[in-house]
């Protein structure tokens, strides 16, 4: 009878295709929404991902994400380096600065100060130059950080640093090697551009050396935001993090743990995430509603056929089985189509439009589970009229 159920399902092509498309749409929506969410969260810990060679991140005890930070005294670096099991430890500084472009426009950047000696944390430059360009004093690497058209400088030399006031509405081009910016009354030189992982929230980035940050920023005793430590052979990152925390009183987390904490921080503290989640829940509810209604309608429109089966002696469990088989087959096929489409479209928009799409292992799983739960619930609801159906309805005039 289950083969009959599947033939019934696929027999009416128009309804079947409609049903599959409805389910595929839901699976697409759920998976895409979750992948989009995962993409944003991935961008939230982009700084950690960029520095994957670090085993342990050390920070002020009150810091629990890369988004909201407070600096540590410079002496913390020495204390961390002295912990047994540390192979090396390098400083990193984060600060928000406002830079002025040559035509008078300004832009807020996140300035990332990396270790002078090793340049650990410096990005790969898009024009093939090496990060060593940062060794030149006052040189910086600019990065859009997920923004677009924010890093513009005037095309014409006469519009750059004019004496007659700002030239705001002049033709511009993207910042390039050799261009200049003004940071806290210091003229800095663009030594190159990079294209690292976009940030959430998007913001332009300005990479420079740790010593440059000291020159560019107002004098302050605490400029050390993070220390990135590498464990010696035979020491696990967890062991090292524990040791550093015990011996320095600072917060030390393995790279993986710090990523998790950062995501958790966004989930709890970021209003953007709440708004996004509300939108996603709404989209998913609509998708689930569509699937449920379509499945219900499919069974409802076949009530007469179920009445025939019932009259012929089909038991309630047999009819239930048929309905659930139809729902399950539709759910699996529709979900497969939806997730496939999601993967293709998502990857396409990610590659072409730099869209924050990241299909992680759990996102399609949630799509499958979500659709399956909705389909089976719809099947259970639509089974009710079938079970309540009076088989005498098959006779004329009833």
């Amino acid at each position, binding site marked *: 009878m289950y083969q009959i159920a599947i033939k019934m399902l696929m027999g009416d092509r128009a309804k079947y295709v409609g049903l599959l498309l409805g389910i595929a749409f839901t699976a697409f929506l759920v998976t895409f929404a979750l992948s989009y969410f995962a993409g944003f969260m991935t961008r939230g810990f982009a700084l950690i991902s960029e520095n994957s060679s670090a085993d342990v991140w050390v920070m002020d005890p009150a810091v629990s994400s890369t988004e909201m930070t407070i600096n540590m005294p410079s002496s913390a670096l020495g204390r961390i380096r002295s912990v047994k099991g540390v192979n090396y430890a390098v400083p990193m500084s984060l600060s928000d600065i406002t830079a002025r472009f040559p035509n008078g426009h300004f832009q807020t950047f996140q300035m990332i100060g990396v270790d002078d000696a090793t340049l650990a944390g410096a990005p790969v430059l898009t024009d093939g130059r090496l990060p060593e360009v940062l060794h030149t004093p006052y040189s910086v690497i600019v990065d859009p950080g997920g923004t677009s058209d924010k890093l513009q400088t005037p095309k014409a030399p006469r519009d750059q640093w004019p004496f007659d006031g700002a030239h705001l509405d002049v033709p511009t081009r993207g910042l390039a090697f050799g261009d200049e910016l003004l940071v806290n009354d210091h003229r800095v030189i663009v030594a190159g551009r990079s294209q690292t992982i976009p940030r959430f929230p998007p913001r332009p980035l300005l990479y420079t050396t740790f010593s440059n940050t000291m020159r560019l920023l107002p004098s302050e005793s605490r400029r050390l935001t993070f220390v990135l430590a590498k464990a010696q052979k035979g020491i696990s990152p967890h062991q090292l993090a524990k040791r550093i925390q015990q011996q320095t009183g600072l917060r030390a987390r393995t790279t993986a743990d710090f990523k998790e904490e950062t995501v958790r921080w966004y989930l709890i503290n970021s209003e953007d995430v709440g708004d996004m989640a509300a939108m996603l829940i709404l989209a998913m509810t609509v998708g689930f509603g569509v699937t449920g209604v379509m499945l219900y309608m499919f069974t409802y429109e076949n009530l007469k056929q179920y009445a025939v089966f019932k009259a012929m002696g*089909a038991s309630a469990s047999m009819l239930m089985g048929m309905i659930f088989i139809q729902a399950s087959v539709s759910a699996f096929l529709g979900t497969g189509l939806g997730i496939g489409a999601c993967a293709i479209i998502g990857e396409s928009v990610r590659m072409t439009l730099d869209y924050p799409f990241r299909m992680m292992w759990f996102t399609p799983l949630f799509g499958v589970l979500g659709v399956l739960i909705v389909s089976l619930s719809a099947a259970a609801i639509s089974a009710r009229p079938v079970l309540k159906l009076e088989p*005498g309805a098959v006779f004329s005039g009833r």
Partner: protein
Amino acid sequence: MINKQTKIAVQCRSIVKTYGSGASEVFALRGVDLDLYEGELLMLVGPSGCGKTTFISIVTALLKADSGVCEVLGQDINALTLEQKVLFRRQSIGFVFQAFNLLPALTAQENVAVPLLIQGRNRKAAMHEAKAVLDSVGLGERIGALPSELSGGQQQRVAIARALVHRPKLIVCDEPTSSLDHKSGQMVMQLLRHIADQSNTTLLVVTHDNRIYHFGDRMAHMDDGRIIKTEMIQEKKETSE
């Protein structure tokens, strides 16, 4: 042919059935008494709303009578549990409907196999038997056709094959010719007559079509929820032949 030795297949006494309650209560059956004999083809006729459909629903255990006794093939229908009724219909009753009620997505052969599949027979055996029955109703060449590819008469013959395939003792036909033209209707009735004669199956045919009355052994007239008259129609049958 009914004679004194013919066993009773269906015996209904004082069957009462109402719908609704209180002021809106409607009497569908007001005490129906009717016997059907094994191998008999009985025509149940009467105006619309007289209770024919309600009566066959009770006989086939699709509906429960409010009172009265109805023994079908030796079973007191009212005394059966829901599960027993399902099993009873599965094994002992065949249905032929006015609108054929074939499953549009299934071929003729698959449609005919459905009652066997409901009984739990394996698909291969069910399909084999379905083909044999389709052969016997003259549709051996159309086993792979979908209902939409068959004429009305052919669809009704498939429906008859479906009613026959599990060898039921009682076949209930609800207006089997009303969706068919005269010629197809006659062919369908000849087939049903043949089944009654050859397999000792009891057939209860509800109809309005006076052109097919002569195919029956007896005719029961129903009106206002009662059987008002039963008559032998042997002579008419012989005349038509």
